[in-house]
């Protein structure tokens, strides 16, 4: 029973699920969680398998949907020398898999005042100088569970191309696997966050209508209409609501 089926077993009103005790036919396979063998469902995610084994995860689970990067996992498959990487919530178990979650990846975030930086190569040099140690081996890209072109954004950072770093690192979930595998000890995700912030702060065109709207609110342009709406009874408000036009 994976966590997903565990939840299912609690039943949902609309599903004709058998509310028995889970004696549904289930194919089990053997995986090695931190070296110890467990029988787990063949269709489980790594996270589901760890919980099926009875572990209460404290470090190593977060959003459980592939956004937060809490569940970085290293694993190997039988007869294969390669170290593989994945998010435990997104990766399926395989027969004979041996795995360990990474509870935390040590890394030092640069402390900076964004108002004092410029969106150029100098910011990268000052805040994340290790970027320039990149030997272009591509291990970071190979290790990315999101399938991002990590090495390409490191190269872009070396050129000071902040827009490219933003674009290529946009979907980074900061699981830390790239920086764990990097032989040059670069902290790619942290640099990526700084680059995105620099892009958002400096390289994006301002929205003129936003500035106008903020000013209008400050000037009290909507005060009278708010007062009118807030004084309306439920019926009048309902009438106004259902009569409103739509874009």
């Amino acid at each position, binding site marked *: 029973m994976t966590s997903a089926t565990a939840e299912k077993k609690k039943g949902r009103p*609309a599903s004709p699920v058998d509310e028995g005790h889970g004696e549904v036919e289930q194919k089990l396979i053997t995986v090695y969680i931190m070296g110890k063998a467990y029988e787990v469902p063949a269709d489980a995610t790594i996270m589901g398998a760890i919980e099926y084994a009875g572990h209460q995860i404290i470090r190593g689970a977060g959003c459980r949907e592939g956004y937060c990067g809490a569940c970085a996992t290293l694993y190997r498959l039988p007869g294969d020398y390669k170290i593989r990487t994945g998010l435990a919530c997104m990766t399926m178990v395989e027969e004979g898999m041996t795995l360990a979650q990474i509870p935390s990846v040590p890394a030092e975030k640069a402390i900076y005042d964004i108002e004092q930086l410029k969106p150029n190569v100098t910011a990268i040099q000052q805040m994340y100088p290790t970027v320039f140690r990149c030997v272009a081996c591509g291990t970071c890209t190979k290790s990315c569970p999101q399938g991002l072109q990590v090495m390409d954004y490191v190269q872009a950072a070396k050129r000071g191309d902040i827009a490219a770093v933003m674009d290529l690192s946009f979907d980074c979930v900061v699981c830390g696997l790239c920086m764990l595998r990097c032989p040059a000890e670069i902290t790619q995700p942290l640099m990526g966050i700084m680059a995105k912030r620099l892009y958002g702060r400096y390289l994006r065109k301002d929205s003129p209508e936003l500035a106008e709207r903020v000013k209008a609110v400050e000037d009290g342009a909507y005060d009278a209409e708010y007062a009118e709406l807030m004084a309306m009874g439920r019926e009048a408000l309902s009438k106004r609501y259902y009569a409103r036009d739509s874009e």
Partner: protein
Amino acid sequence: MYPDYMEESLRKVVESRPKRLELARKSDPVYPLMNAEERRAVLEGFHPDFEPSARRNVCVGPNKGESLTTEVADLLESHSWLRSEQVDLDKPDFETDLLIIGGGGAGCNAALVAMKEHGMRSIIATKLRMGDANTMMSQGGMQAAVSRTDSPTRHYLDAIGGGHFENKPELVRALTEDGPGVVKWLEDLGVCWDKEEDGALKTMHGGGTSRKRMLSCRDYTGAMIMRTLMDEVRNHPDMIDVKEFMPAVELIMDSNGRCAGAILYNMDSEEFFVVKAKSTLIATGGYGRLHIRGYDTTNHYGATGDGLVMAYRAGAKLMYMDSVQYHPTGVSFPEQIAGFLVTEAIRGAGGQPLNKDGELFVFPREPRDIEASAIIRECVQNGNGIPTPSGRVGVWLDSPLIDMLHGEGYTEKHFPAMYRQFIRYGIDITKLPMLIYPSLHYQNGGIEINERCETDIPGLYVAGEASGGLHGRNRLMGNSVLDYNVFGRRAGKYASEYAKTVKLGKLSVAHLDAYEKQLADANVQTDLVTPILLPSYAPKDVKKRQLVRGGNALPGSSVVLNRLHDDMFSPAAGAK
């Protein structure tokens, strides 16, 4: 890939697509909108809140006698981890201006405003890592009235109508009026909003919006906002002390009935720590991991309603805790991602919900409770759902329409997370529809606040999903992202102003003993100890073998399992 038996239904979707595409290209709604009477009928008939066992009266605390969501009543009628004699309050381990409980969007906003605008120090105490919050997971966007055809007052009308006119008006005003300012605040911090070539913010529709008002950062909106806020918090270690894996387990009061901090629990060393704070903010988020009515949830691992029960024991009143939000589109298949969120922006961009015959049965962008109820009706009453191999059911969400409407490549560019989620299982959402069913998504109610984020208890502030009143009994898409930004910022401001003048009296946790007495007087029989902190997904046979320490009088987190749905331990069975 979808199983073979779904082929015929998929073929019908393809067949009806050209006609539906034509409808989508017109400016009229693709399906008639429901009027007030139709909305009421579908809600009362099919919304899970209206099932007979969905609610029960709570028998202790500030809302005593009020009908609440059953699982919430169970949560509130529970024992504390602590009794007053177990805690030494004379020598606090930490002192600070603001104690912020919860390191999500609301908490980080509050800490930044407290520091930048009021020079106040804060401690952020969070259960898991900073940013481990539902904030991180919001995909589709944030509402804010920024376009020229829109206005904050129109946003007000949409929000209050979506909430069935039960929202607290002053909160809706604060939300909608602060919206544009929040967009600017976040952009100045470096959030990369999706923009047009000329710099105008891209806007989309969400359910219940009468103007395109949804701002986005691809479909990583929450992740972008959260990582930016966290990064900025970490730029100020001298002013903001972040304590991770240190959840609060109870509030501390003073001799004058003010909130004066909290007791934290270190998840690693299993120690308790006393924090004395001039003001305290609960920003602990919601309760999806209680799996209300057995539903799958879109929520974060830590969404166990901790703040609710702590505040309730201390005497804060809850509002609209009888109302649960089920997101219309949770994943129904593949099984491994069942319950996961499919962003409402998919429908905002033109995706259509379809029954097994490939037919529309509801306007795609009704407010969430209406849309979810209509999907449940289509499956349960009309029998027009598509069963999955594991016994779930779902309807199609026709995503290939999106590229047809906006051009090839649009889906992959604007919904990379969604695309990635499904392609892992061999389903290309630009070519095949998704199979969806409502999933437990949001705590509509919470601890009642005013527009200053104040509660019944002086010195106790609440912001974000933990609070109640803003959304009435139904929140619209994109208003929670705005909520935690607007009210997180407001909490930072008002809690700072209060902290500048307050003089605390003697610290006390006598309220825990008083609450325990209320439980005994009401003859509540339960072994549930809360806050729950983390749900357990261990199989039943494993749970039976697991260690239970000291009869649960002082449990470690590893034994405070989610027993709400475990027959063996069901508190509902014993409680009155």
